[in-house]
Every structure is written in structure tokens, then in C-alpha cells.
């Protein structure tokens, strides 16, 4: 049954996310944030390093959509809509950076860190395969981060650094951990499940993405 397969996969994905969240909590940057040692330079470094992945996000999603075959047009539409919604988000990071006292050219000219390089290469590699359904696992991780972690981080940065909201729009705007988000994801899973090999690929892709994403955050040094 599709429902059982969706529930099984979601459960495995939730376990991967829990592990991911714990790994993030233990990174030096997030430790600084939760221990009240976070400085403006840390926030600048955070935005610079997030921008790389955010900028690439809509691009790999578009590529993935273009590789989805005609048996799954609905999923293709969903990914394309997601890509459209998100493909300018990196501009938000730039305006946040400037509003927080940074220079535009500094964030635009920054290089990817080791984790961002690995994450980006992995995403484009996966997106280039035919019917790259495993990337639903990557979306679970990255969108889960947006819906669960971004806002609490934003509020902590605000509390710690006393920045105005217009310097925190990316973190604060990503917003609410609502039930609707989960519903939409379930619908996407139901478009490709039940299929044991696909389910396994989704969970594996989530695991790899989580590890590389955490590496990206680990690599941030102010």
C-alpha cells in the first residue's frame, strides 16, 4: 500500500533528520550561537556560506525536473514550482548581509567552502540521472532545515546581536514548521512510492545530503 510505504520512508527520513539536527548542534558555529558566543563576524560567515548552497538549490532542482520522465509529470511540475519559488532566495542573503554591515562584493565573490563544494557536486550529480527520485530525500533535509531550524536560529542571532529584522529576513522568512509542509512532502512521496529501490535511494540520498550539509556548516570559520 502506498500509505504504508510512505509512512515507512518518512519514518526512516525522520530518523536521518534527527541525527542531522544533532550533528548540526555539535558544530562549532551552532555551538557558538547556542552558548551565547556568536559574533557579527560569525553571522557574516554564516550568510556567505549559506548563499552558495541556496544559489545552487534552485539550479539542481531545475536540472532534476528536466530529468524526470513523462510518467511522473506531476512530480516534475512540483519540482519546477519549487525551483521558481526559491531561485532568487540567494538575493535575500545578500541584502541581509549588507543590512548586517557587510559589503556586497564580499558575499558575491566568496568561494565555496569544502563542504559546499562536496554538497553542490553531489546534488548536481544526482540531479543529472534519469528519474532522480532520490533527491526527494535531499529536499527533506534541506527543506526540513528551513522549516524547523532557520527561524529559531534567526531569533537567536537577533537576540544575541541585536540586529534589525531586515538583516535577518532569510532566516526569519523561511518560517514556520507547519503541518502543511509535511502534507506536501507526503504527496510527493506518494507520486513515486511504493517502490523498494526508490525508497532506499531516497533515504540514502537524505543521509548523504545531511552529512555533506553538516560538513558545510562545520567548515564555517569566522
Amino acid at each position, binding site marked *: 500500500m502506498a500509505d*504504508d510505504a*510512505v*509512512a*515507512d520512508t*518518512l*519514518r*526512516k527520513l*525522520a*530518523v536521518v*533528520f*534527527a*541525527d542531522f*539536527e*544533532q*550533528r548540526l*548542534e*555539535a558544530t562549532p558555529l551552532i*555551538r557558538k550561537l*547556542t*552558548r*551565547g558566543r556568536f559574533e557579527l563576524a560569525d553571522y557574516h560567515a554564516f550568510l556567505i556560506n549559506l548563499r552558495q548552497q541556496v544559489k545552487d538549490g534552485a539550479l539542481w532542482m531545475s536540472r532534476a525536473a528536466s530529468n524526470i520522465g513523462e510518467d511522473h509529470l506531476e512530480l516534475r511540475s512540483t519540482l519546477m514550482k519549487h525551483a521558481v519559488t526559491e531561485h532568487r532566495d540567494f538575493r535575500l542573503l545578500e541584502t541581509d548581509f549588507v543590512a548586517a554591515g557587510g559589503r556586497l562584493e564580499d558575499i558575491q565573490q566568496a568561494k565555496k567552502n569544502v563542504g559546499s563544494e562536496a554538497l553542490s557536486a553531489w546534488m548536481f550529480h544526482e540531479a543529472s540521472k534519469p528519474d532522480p527520485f532520490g533527491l526527494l530525500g535531499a529536499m527533506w533535509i534541506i527543506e526540513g532545515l528551513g522549516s*524547523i531550524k532557520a527561524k*529559531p536560529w534567526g531569533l*537567536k542571532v537577533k537576540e544575541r546581536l541585536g540586529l534589525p529584522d531586515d538583516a535577518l529576513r532569510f532566516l526569519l522568512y523561511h518560517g514556520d*514548521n*507547519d*503541518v502543511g509542509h*509535511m502534507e506536501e512532502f*507526503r504527496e510527493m512521496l506518494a507520486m513515486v512510492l511504493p517502490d523498494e529501490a526508490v525508497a532506499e535511494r531516497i533515504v540514502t540520498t537524505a543521509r548523504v545530503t545531511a552529512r555533506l550539509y553538516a560538513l558545510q556548516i562545520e567548515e564555517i570559520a569566522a
Partner: protein
Amino acid sequence: MSDSGPRLRDVYITGVGAHLPGPAVGNDRMEDHIGRIHGRDSVVGRRALRWNGIRARHYALATDGTVRDSNAGMTAKAVAAALDDAGLGVGDLRHLATATTQGDYLVPGHATAVQAELGAGPLEIASYQSVCASALMAAKGAWLQVRVGEAEVAAAAAGEFSSRWFRPGFYEGTALVDPKGRLATEADFLRFTLSDGAGAVVMEPHPREQGLSLKVEWIDLTSLAGLFDPCMWAGSTRADRADMASAWSHAGPTEAHAAGAVALLQDFELLKIVIRAWIGIWLEKVDSGRIDPDRVDHLLCHYSARSLREEIVGLLENTAAMIPEEKWFTTLPETGNIGSASIWVMLEAFMKGERPKRGDRVLLIVPESGRAMIGFMMLEVV
């Protein structure tokens, strides 16, 4: 097939006991017992009570702050009640494992004080100390003692005397009270959450002859302390708690008290993350087949289903890992949150009630925010 390993015995809970000090105290009167900081009503108390859903609790403190019992005294009474329930006496006990968040003394261990209050002769004892999940640490110790044949009768007991930590003297004149006389939320919330009491279970290698026993299937504990800073703690200030050099004993008792380091504190933002970590471990147990939610007939959880936020319940439902609320059994609203003792107080009420039937599977879950831990105990009614 020959069995070259140690011969392990089945172990049964043959007695349960609880001790709740004094009369039940309703929400309207609780501040009379724990006291008012600089004489003023708490500003966060109502909110805390709405969230935890507790309507009554017991205190070993009288309204004037007089101490009516000790943690050890209450724990000993629960052990005696559990032994009595099993048809045994103190002289039959061979191993006593105790759990608590804080004993009456700093040193020596809680089990020594409980043994003394119990008036027990020479005995093997073990003191387990953490927060709520210490109940299952002690249970696991006692279970293994009987299982491997080291003891014929073992007791796992847990006691808490939280209220004496909540008296104004723990906070007044410290950095936890602001210039307007308001106590910091991270300290005040717990004052409206935790209360006093004790519970105990007795384990033997055979079920009782009459009445129902509980066969212990397994006990699993997972601590994630290596990944998280303390979430509920006493002994350091909030800002410095990740640094062990900040411990109260390094600063000395007077300075530590002034800094607000000698009070129970909770980080609520971290708690949200810790709750997700508990859920992660739960989902792992379901996913690996260790727990089949459909095969659990009763869930006794040291956490209220109503306190779980909508998105957590949604996650559990969507992952086929929710145990429907009608299978939950709790005494939290009536007996309060008694830390490590809660699970045994609940089990005692459960076994004395109408619900358990032979063959039912009973799952105990004890999450501990302390430094992110969760324990599970699977039982079968026999």
C-alpha cells in the same frame, strides 16, 4: 543445542509501591508550599501549569516550609510498600538500587540513606543519579542482578524531594532574580512542574503466586549527552554550563549560590530540540522492529501526550509510530511530575486499577531532558 553462555533467568516485577507525602495540593495552593520569591506571586506559574496540565501534586514541605519527610524517608516507604505488595519483608531484600535527581545529602549515595531509613541489615546497594531516566537505570541494574542469578529479590526505587529546591532561599539574593524581584523563567517554570514522592518495584525470578505480575522483556536506555549541552541542570549558570570548570564546586558554595548556579534550571529552547531527539530514538526503535506500536496495549509515558506539539503528533501519525491516546495511562495530572519516581507511581496506579489483563504488553517510556536521554522498558502482564 548447547548453551555455553551464562544462563539468564526470566525476571518478574512482583510488587509495586508508591509513597506520596501529605494531601494532594491543588494549583491554587501550591505557592503556599513552595513559597513566593520576595513575597510575590509568580508571573510564569499559570503558563507552566497550562502547558504541563498538572492539577494536583504532593509536597513533603508544609506551608510554612517545615520539612515533613526526607527524600530517603519517602523512598524507603515506597520500597517497604513494594515489598509488602510482593508479600515480602525488608529482610528478604538482597539488592537495593535507588534513583534520584538529588539525594538529601551530597555524599554518600542515596541508596545508603534509603537503606538506613528502611532499617535494612547488610545489603548490596547501588545509587543511580541523573534526572527522570535514572529510574530505569536502577531498574536495569536490579533486573540484571536477578537475571544473572546474583540476587533472588531486588528492588528498584526512585524518590524526589524537588520542592525544597524551590523555596525562596534558593533564589533570593542571586543573579536569578532581576532588580524588580522577578525570578528568571528558566528557574521559575520548573517550580510549577516538579513535586515530591517516591515509587518502587520489586523483582524476582518467578511471578507471584496470586494476582498479576509483570514479566520484564527488556530495558533500553540511550543517552545523547555527547551531542548536547545540559538542558535541565543544577550546579552551573546558564551561560557557562557547557564548561565543566564552571561547576559550583569550583567556585565554592557561597559564590556559586550568588551567581544562581545552585538552582534547578531548564533551557526551553534546547528542550524543543531534545524532544525531537527523543522522537528520533523512538522512531528508530519502531523502524528496527524493537517496538511494534500495534503490539503495545498500554503506554505509560513520563510525558504528557497533550504537551507534544502538533507537528510532533503529526510526525508520529505520518510515520505510523503513534500510539493512540486511549492506550496511554498516566497519573501526571493528579500526582504531578515526580521526576524519577513518576514512572513507578504511574505503574503502581496502573497495576491497582482495572486495566491490566494477562497477556497485555505494557511499555514504559521515560524521557529525560537533563542532557538528552530516553529509556524504554517493555513488560508483559502475566
